[in-house]
């Protein structure tokens, strides 16, 4: 579904060139949930923005559903780090924004918006304004907005990083539930090993400066997963420890 081949990204700044990504290749199959983890400066957000078409790669090629990415597209949904809700629009109208931009059928869209809001537990909040909602609720609205146009690919850029620890845990559980229900292709950037282990089929570890693909860890643990005392805690604990080590030990840069 997503093809990333030999992608490099170099930012030209006043202080000289900064190499953000070096020859990264990755294939994400249909319905797969892939998490990208790495320390800050590893280019994980850059990679996501390249797939979203928000910026273009210095070299290499990116395809979604077989066609090269030339700019933002309708079959790709993007969820930002911050909710980015329009403060003057009600919750419902915020969710409907993409459907207005794409001029989709109004009645269908409204029905779908209500369905999505129900799904994330915001039933009855549709007429509220964003400032009346908590941070976690705002981010749920943002998730609904990213899903309303039924994208084939959902890109999430550290979507829970601005929330407190418990709200994060809640939303992680919820996203897992959603994913089990509708199995869309997701590329999820995070710096939280816990989120990656709970949500992903595969976890891609990037190493920083320049961002390179270090390792891909397969998470073959049955869903629903949790970090509490259930059947999989031992397996998940093992994977967490491995990812932790990968992130904490620097890798020799081969030039």
């Amino acid at each position: 579904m997503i093809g990333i081949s030999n992608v490099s990204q170099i930012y030209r700044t006043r202080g000289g060139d900064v190499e953000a990504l070096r020859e990264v290749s990755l294939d994400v199959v249909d319905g797969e949930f892939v998490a990208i983890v790495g320390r800050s400066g590893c280019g994980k957000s850059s990679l996501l923005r390249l797939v979203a078409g928000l910026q273009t790669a210095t070299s290499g090629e990116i395809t979604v559903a077989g066609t090269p990415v030339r700019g933002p597209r309708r079959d790709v949904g993007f969820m930002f780090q911050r909710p980015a809700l329009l403060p003057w629009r009600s919750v419902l109208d915020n969710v409907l924004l993409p459907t207005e931009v794409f001029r989709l059928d109004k009645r269908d869209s409204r029905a779908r918006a209500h369905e999505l809001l129900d799904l994330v537990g915001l039933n009855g909040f549709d007429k509220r304004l964003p400032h009346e909602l908590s941070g976690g609720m705002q981010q749920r609205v943002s998730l609904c907005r990213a899903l309303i146009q039924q994208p084939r690919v959902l890109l999430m850029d550290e979507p829970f990083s601005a929330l407190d620890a418990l709200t994060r845990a809640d939303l992680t559980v919820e996203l897992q539930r959603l994913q089990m229900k509708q199995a869309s292709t997701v590329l999820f950037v995070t710096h939280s090993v816990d989120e990656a282990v709970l949500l992903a089929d595969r976890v891609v570890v990037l190493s920083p400066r320049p961002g390179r693909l270090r390792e891909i860890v397969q998470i073959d643990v049955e869903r629903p997963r949790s970090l509490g005392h259930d059947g999989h805690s031992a397996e998940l604990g093992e994977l967490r420890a491995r990812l932790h080590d990968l992130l904490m030990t620097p890798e020799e840069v081969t030039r």
Partner: protein
Amino acid sequence: MTVAETPRARRAGPRPDARWTQHLPPVLGVVAAVALWWAITVVFDVESFILPSPIEVGRAMTEQSGYLWDNTLVTLAETLLGFGLAIAVGVPLALIVTASRMLERTVYPLLLMLNAVPKVAVAPLLVVWMGFGQFPKVFLVFLVCFFPIVISTAAGLSSTPADLVELGRSLRTNWWQTFRMIRMPAAVPQLFVGLKLAITLAVIGAVIAEFVGATEGLGYAIVASGASADTALAFGAMILLGVMSVVLFYLLEAIERFFVPWADRS
């Protein structure tokens, strides 16, 4: 029955004590200022034509209430017409200015120069150009209001929050969609900053215009009563101007709170 209902009714409405703390300070301020004014006229035994006491002003206002009311309406009409004209011209101009860097650089210096011209100096010229009717007054109000409205609207339009701009980009909105769905509504709080500033200037503009070549309006009333040494009446007219300014300002604020309830919370 009534006894039992009272506390419930009180709880349902806005809390009365909260209301008190909200309205008491401004009332106290006005009362204190009037008392001080009155004390000065009594203690220093000031002549009435130099500084009339609040009581004399009150008497003049009640005796000539019809005259003052008619003139208040004239000034109010000029103020509102000029203000409306400034919105009608200023907002579109702000759109044009923010649409292109080149236009901004062409128009801004002109605007600044126009704003730097002392409006008092323009008032007599307007009479020469436009005669003694109401139009030169409306036009002067327009000149005074126009600048803050253009500047604040332009500032609002060019300071759309970065995450909302990015959102528009990710949805591939075209120029018009970005403008209509994101930039314009995001600029409204800034627009109101300019409107509130402009409305207070508008009243001043109307009075300045009425000082020159007018036969009615509160500005004219001040000049006329000053000439006949009826200082109490002049004070009455000035008080009405002040009240008008305050009422218009808070009216705008109420409109803002109604239409932009999200303004200072996002």
